[in-house]
């Protein structure tokens, strides 16, 4: 009965490095979403996976951002050549029906 888990919980990196953020959704939830939450801001949609359909990448801010979902379960969000403006909390959510369940997020700090 575990919820959504994300790792790492905190990540500090240097500008220009690549980072990978992981999301383990609730088993059986076919929809998976990534959002970004900057300080004092609401959540900004990044990307959405639904089953075997092509992902909705319309929210990715640049081509430095990519995500994949393997076997319809675990998802990885990759940010290449990180910039200071990438510093934020990255949240993953999943859904079986219409309700999205969120993980605790990964707090990314780019120095």
């Amino acid at each position, binding site marked *: 009965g575990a919820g*959504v888990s994300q790792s790492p919980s905190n990540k500090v990196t240097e500008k220009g490095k690549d980072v990978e953020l992981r999301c383990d959704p609730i088993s059986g939830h076919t*929809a998976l*979403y990534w*959002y970004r939450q900057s300080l*004092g*801001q*609401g*959540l*900004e*949609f990044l990307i*959405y996976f*639904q*089953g075997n*359909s092509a992902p*909705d990448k319309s*929210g990715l801010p640049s081509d430095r951002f990519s995500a994949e979902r393997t076997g319809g379960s675990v998802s990885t969000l990759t940010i290449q050549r990180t910039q200071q403006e990438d510093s934020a909390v990255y*949240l993953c*959510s999943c*859904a079986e*029906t*219409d*309700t*999205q*369940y*969120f*993980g*605790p*997020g990964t707090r990314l700090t780019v120095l």
Partner: protein
Amino acid sequence: QKEVEQDPGPLSVPEGAIVSLNCTYSNSAFQYFMWYRQYSRKGPELLMYTYSSGNKEDGRFTAQVDKSSKYISLFIRDSQPSDSATYLCAMRSFDAGGTSYGKLTFGQGTILTVHP
């Protein structure tokens, strides 16, 4: 202009007060409306979900939607210190494809503090 506008506060009220949180939106396609609560360093959790104009009540919480005015509200009665959190409104449009539920568009969140 953002699609969803929410007063960020912060809002500070005494225990027992009635709290009113509001969002306005500009996209007429939004049909489903939610309120999430987010404690510090945690992910958002769903509080209320509605898809029609009018009121929906759940315990001390009432969600109100006025589609004609593009305005939604969350009322908290008898507020408690444990209600201190950030409250986020969220909404999405109807997906006619039927196989996906689509992204949520969020307000920026209102920080609420209920002091004893």
